[in-house]
């Protein structure tokens, strides 16, 4: 799984490669941070939206909207402001692949 990507890719280098290759461990770890509230694999939890398998572009756009305060939230704005565009793209890609 992850070992497919042990080729020295960094999280920031990921987005361009995301279509073709399995996620790097860095992307997996970054994205799994979401699962602490959105459930294992992003499948959702009581009060935590299911995010697994949603469209990559939609996920990224949602995070970017939280980051800029265009989308109101209790906590997601504070979270989204921790990530760059490239990191958001890598996280969105990982979550979109979850089934």
């Amino acid at each position: 799984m992850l070992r497919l990507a042990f080729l020295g890719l960094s999280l920031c280098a990921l987005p361009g490669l995301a279509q073709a290759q399995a996620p790097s461990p860095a992307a997996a770890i970054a994205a799994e941070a979401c699962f602490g509230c959105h459930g294992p694999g992003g499948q959702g939890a009581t009060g935590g939206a299911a995010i697994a398998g949603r469209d990559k572009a939609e996920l990224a756009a949602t995070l970017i909207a939280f980051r800029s305060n265009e989308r109101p939230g209790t906590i997601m704005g504070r979270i989204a402001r921790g990530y760059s565009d490239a990191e958001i793209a890598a996280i969105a890609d990982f979550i979109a692949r979850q089934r």
Partner: protein
Amino acid sequence: MSNNISRRSLIAATALLAAPTTLRAQTSARLLIIGGGFGGASAASFARRHYPEAQVTLVEPNTQFVTCPYGNLLLAGERQISHITHSYDGLRARGVRILHDRAIGIDAPAKRVRLQGGDTLTYDRLILSPGIAMRWGAIEGYDQAASEIMPHAWVPGDGTQTLLLRRQLEAMPDGGVVGIAIPANPFRCPPGPYERISMIAHYLKKHKPRSKILALDAKEAFSKQGLFQDGWRALYGEMIEWVPGNRDGKVVKVDPRERVLETEFGTRHKVDVANVIPPQSAGTIAIEAGLANDTGWVPVNTRSFEARAAQGIHVIGDANIPGPMPKSGYIAHSTAKQAVASAMAGLRGEAPPEALYFNTCYSHVGTDYGISVVGIFRPNADGTAIAEVPNSGGVSPRGDLPEQRRLEAIYADTWYEAITKSMFG
């Protein structure tokens, strides 16, 4: 070094076609995890999910895990012990070999761990998540025997301490005083004592409204302070008195028989229930293995979590020195994954992956009144420091925001459900 480089280029050059034998040999690594809490259980789950060839062994003395998070809701009477107790069966079903034994010694050069039951285990990489130890005697008179009268309820173990404190609260007459001694930084779960104050106040307001809480603190400031104090005033009026260190709040001595908490300048506070959260250190095995420095905590590489004092031992959870990160369950969960990925990379002669550490700590001020702090952290390239990502994270907004508070109390439940499933499911 040249060997590593050539191996890496070989793998890259031949893509994955020529690699399977080599990779299989490298990934059937023996990963030994000591401690089955937020750090160790998360490490075991992550290792099984992402490195299926690795042999993962988890050593944990307790046959079930009682969480610290939501223990304060048990004190409030809002949860039972069964709600905060988790089985290791899910990890077992994932293929983790679980030994309910206590690790009592580490031989780092030989890569061996001794167990109390007599066995010796060998490993290729060790993930050490030993939690905390109480510094008995740091407060005069506060030893293990005293903790059976004045519970700390800060290391749940099998739940005994948390249940003891709950029983004492139930037995206390209306009009009684609950004394809580709170240590200086660093300690496990920075907002924990203040959530505990809140949840005890919730119980008292409902059942023993003439009672008081006297919180004696070694510090002058604490996590989410403004938010907690706003909530205390709004929900509990004058019930809570918080005494900071510079107003003689630091408890230096206890008398369990008289139930007295004595502060630095000799004030003796007689209370009806005493909850003493003493100063702490890394878990005993980390200290005995010589991994801790003179602070009592373990210095680590901030990118791989490898102990500075020993190669091949990754120390995660509350036992390490985490820079600006809190000693929290979520940080243990997040850094456990990085430690596993780094251990597996290390066995291939590769550097740890890029890292981002993530934390959210919710606290209940009331049962329908939640607040939170968020932090996203990044280590530097050489693993000597960690910094919080600028302009990110932070605490919930202050002000009269009932909907925000209501939602954050719900999201706290969400977090608890999701993270425990992620660890043990």
